[in-house]
Structures are given as structure tokens and as C-alpha cells.
């Protein structure tokens, strides 16, 4: 017994230690955001000689960070709202309905998970332009939400199986209609997976570059954060002095958001487990 206990604690220490290694890159990016270009290339691992915030301020002002953050925030909130509203509905309904139509819908929704985005990029932009949504914020929101639905639905679909049918039966007997049942009973039970989906989609939307570039085109007013930063790079130049502070600043909301969400994932699951 004692030996087994010790083995377990050794492994958990190793895992905890490894997690700090995972953190190292973040630290490296942070310290390099304070270095001048040449210094960064010559002495990547060293601490910066000065910790001046000049470049941070410059980036904030020159790039129009407030506008970019507002845009990106809008996009992320809109996309998550869309996903949280529509994806569980679909996943739940398709999981509970077992006919051919349901199967077809499921395949149609999951299929994009198999296809590399790059392969239908041009076709998508053509489609977006055909409905006059090129360069618009709405167009971007619709496309970026649509691209995240497959994975979200897939994850939720698997989770729905864990909800016992008896719950729904008894709710039906109590006279609950389909919508009421969905919102009051099913949705709360999906909280853990929904939190996971929310975190993943929020982060991937926040960090998105390529979709924003494609849909928004030249409309600087509708650009998101990462796209604007990416413009500073090319095959021959890289403005790291502004890009790195920009990247660090763009990561801060993500980190805050993620840490805040941590509690909900674990808390939600344990509550569900005790009940079930």
C-alpha cells in the first residue's frame, strides 16, 4: 500500500513540474517583447537590458489597439453567443432523434471537420461575395461561427448521451414542452462541455488570422487584432519590436478569461456527477 502511494505522488510531481516547462515559452515571449530587434536575435534567452514600456505604448497607439480590441471582442462574443445558442440545440436534437433525416443532418454538420480549410478558401470567398457580405463584420461573424459549429456539435453530441432519458421522460409527464425542457433541464446539464466549447471557441476566434483576412479584405475598420499584427510580417521582414508587445497584450485577456473559466469546468462537472 505504502509503495503504491509513493509511486502515485512521484508521477504527480513529475506532471506538475512538466507543466512549468510548458509555461516557459510564455516567459520567453514576454521577456523578448522588451528587447530591441538585434538584441532579440542575438541573445534570445537572456533577460532584456531595459524594461521600458515604450514599444508597448507605441504599439498601442499606432495600431489603434482600442478599436482592434473592440472589434475582436465583438467578434468573439458574437461567435460564442451563436455557438452556445445553436450548437447544443442541434446536438441535443440530433442525438435524441434517430431517423434518416437526423443522420443526414449530422453528417452534413460534422463533415467539415475532415476538410482542410485551405482547400475551399477561394470558394468560400466567392460565396461570401455572392451574398454581398464581403468586408462586413456580419459576414465575418457568420463565417467564423459556422466554422466552429462542427467541432462544438460533435463534442456536445457525445456528452448528451450522459443525460439519462428518464429525466426527460419525467419532465414530459410533468407537462414540460420541448423548449422548456431544453432550456431548463438539458442545457444546465451540459454546462461542463459547454464551458469547454466556450473556452476553445473563444480562444480560437480571438487568435484567428486567416479567416479575418479573407472575409474582411481591405476594410481596416473590421479587422481583428491578430490580423492587424500579422500585417507586420512578410517573407523578408518582421517587425518583432511591435509585434511581440502586441502579441503579449493580446494574450492578456485570453489568460484572464481562461483562468476565470477554469473553476467552472471542474465545478460544473463535479456537481453533475453527484446528481447523476
Amino acid at each position, binding site marked *: 500500500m505504502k509503495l503504491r502511494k509513493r509511486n502515485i505522488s512521484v508521477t504527480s510531481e513529475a*506532471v506538475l513540474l512538466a507543466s512549468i516547462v510548458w509555461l516557459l515559452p510564455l516567459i520567453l515571449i514576454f521577456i523578448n517583447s522588451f528587447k530591441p530587434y538585434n538584441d532579440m536575435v542575438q541573445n534570445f534567452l537572456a533577460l532584456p537590458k531595459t524594461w521600458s514600456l515604450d514599444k508597448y505604448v507605441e504599439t498601442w497607439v499606432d495600431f489603434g489597439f482600442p478599436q482592434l480590441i473592440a472589434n475582436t471582442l465583438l467578434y468573439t462574443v458574437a461567435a460564442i453567443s451563436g455557438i452556445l445558442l445553436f450548437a447544443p*440545440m442541434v446536438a441535443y436534437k440530433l442525438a435524441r432523434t434517430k431517423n434518416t433525416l437526423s443522420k443526414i443532418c449530422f453528417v452534413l454538420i460534422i463533415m467539415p471537420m475532415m476538410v*482542410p480549410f485551405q482547400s475551399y478558401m477561394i470558394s468560400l470567398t466567392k460565396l461570401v461575395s455572392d451574398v454581398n457580405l464581403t468586408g462586413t463584420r456580419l459576414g465575418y461573424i457568420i463565417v467564423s461561427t459556422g466554422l466552429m459549429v462542427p467541432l462544438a456539435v460533435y463534442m456536445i453530441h457525445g456528452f448528451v448521451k450522459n443525460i439519462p432519458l428518464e429525466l426527460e421522460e419525467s419532465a414530459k409527464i410533468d407537462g414540460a414542452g420541448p423548449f422548456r425542457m431544453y432550456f431548463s433541464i438539458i442545457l444546465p446539464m451540459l454546462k461542463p462541455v459547454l464551458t469547454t466549447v466556450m473556452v476553445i471557441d473563444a480562444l480560437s476566434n480571438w487568435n484567428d488570422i486567416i479567416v479575418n483576412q479573407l472575409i474582411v479584405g481591405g476594410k481596416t475598420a473590421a479587422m481583428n487584432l491578430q490580423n492587424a499584427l500579422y500585417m507586420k510580417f512578410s517573407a523578408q521582414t518582421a517587425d518583432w519590436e511591435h509585434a511581440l508587445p502586441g502579441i503579449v497584450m493580446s494574450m492578456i485577456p485570453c489568460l484572464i478569461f481562461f483562468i476565470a473559466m477554469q473553476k467552472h469546468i471542474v465545478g460544473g462537472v463535479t456537481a453533475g456527477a453527484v446528481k447523476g
Partner: protein
Amino acid sequence: MNTKKIKNFFIFAVFVFPALALVLFASDIPFVMNMYYSVFNWNGISQDMTFVGLDNFIKIFTNDHFFWKSVQFTLKYAIFFVVIINVAAISIALVLSKEKKSSSVARAFYYVPYIISMTAISLLWKFILGPGFSSLYQITGWEFFNWSWLGSGKLAFIVVVVMTTWQNIGYYIMNYITGIIAVPTELLEASKIDGANRWQTITKIMLPMIMPSISVCLLTSLTFSFKIFDVIMVFTKGGPANSTASVAYNIYTEAFLNNNYGLATAKSVVFVIFVLCITAIQTKITKGREVEA
């Protein structure tokens, strides 16, 4: 009776159609458009396209060894990535699913790379593998640090696997923790009372109970590895000497650098059919083993 059917269908529609419409618009319809373009010879820019029937498809199967090289790379990568990341994630998740304070902090740390954009990550790894490893070699003298990590095909492959595992493992750990915590503790207690040791508990009870999570993670990691593009595009650029070009990268260069959009879309069609077959097989296997609550 009929009104009930209509009512049911209406409810079904309300639940299903919004999300379905979004997906149709963002992915399905563009892909069908792809199938249309694949029978033309088009450079992606000009207004004229010439109809060539199945020529593009024939070319893929007879005269495109780079495509097949990239398929080989992608498959090899998929096997390594799927196995490594899932095994590692389950192991780490088992440790971190306890309620300790340190666990939740560690969990967050593993997720950090996911938050960093690919441009920053490629910068990081460039310097770690270059100057970083050189300094480490000078300090420790281990040959390991002196190998040409980005200069040889085999080593570059390992770099790609390690980089993507490092970046994405947080997602899988989170998924597995969700699954592990949902396993009723009574079951685990009962098995311990029955005299099972830790290994038996894990393999005979825990793993089957988290099969839904495994199923999701397997499919996600499989489809992710098939689509791998960002790392190649930003970091290795398919090098050295085209050894790390993935299928998505091959399709991208065909479309935008060789300006051969017809051929590129044809390749994407071929590839998707291939992926569908594999994922169908994989889903059948894991679904068969799931245990419902």
C-alpha cells in the same frame, strides 16, 4: 396524427436548422463548389476556365509524386500525433483530475501554448532549436543538442510532432479531465475493495467509462492531424526539401503558388474521401466500445 408529425418536424427544424444553415454556408457549399472547380483547368484568377473532365484526377493518380509524398507525411504524422497526444493527455489528466489546488494551476499551464498565436510560437521554436540548443550543447556537451533538428527530414518530422503536441495537449487534457471526473467514484471504490490494483482499475474500469471522451479526442486529433497546415506554413514551410509538406500545404501551394486551382480542388476531393473512410472506420470501432451511463 398528421398535425403531430408536422409539429414534431417544426420543432426539429427550429432546433436543427440555424446551426445547419451556418455550416452549410461556411463549409459544405464551398466544398461542393470545389467539386465543381475540380473538373476545370483554372488558374484561380482569370475569368476563363477550360473544362477538362477527369484530367485533374488522372493527373493526381499518375503524375504527382509530391502529392503522394505529402499524403505519406500526413499519415505518418497522424499516427504519431494521435497516439502520443492521447496517451500523454490521459496520463496527465489522471494525475490532474484530483481536486488539489496545484492541479488546477498545472492544468492552466498546460493550456498556455494554445493561447499563443502561431507566429509567436514559430519564433520561439526557431530560437530554441537554433541558438538555444547551441548554447545548451556548449554547456552540456550532449550530442542531442547538436543534431541538425531542422536540417534533416527525419528530425524535422519529430520537431513538428513535438511542437504540435506541446501546443494542443491542453485541449485534450481538459477533455479527458471532464470525462474522468464524471466517472462515479463508487465504481472506483468498489473495484479497490475487490482488490484491483491501480493498473487494473485504469484499464478495466476507467478507460471503458471514459470511452466517449476517448472517442471525441481520437476523432479530433485524427482530423486535426489530417488538416495540419499552420505549423508547416509558418514554421517549416514544407522543408527541408519538401520533407514536411502536409496534404493541406500541398493543396495550398498548388492553388496559390502554382496557380492550378482545378488540380488543387481535385486533390482536396480525393483527400476528403480518403479521410472520410478512415474516420468512419475509427468511429465504428470506438462507438462499439462505448458504455452508456
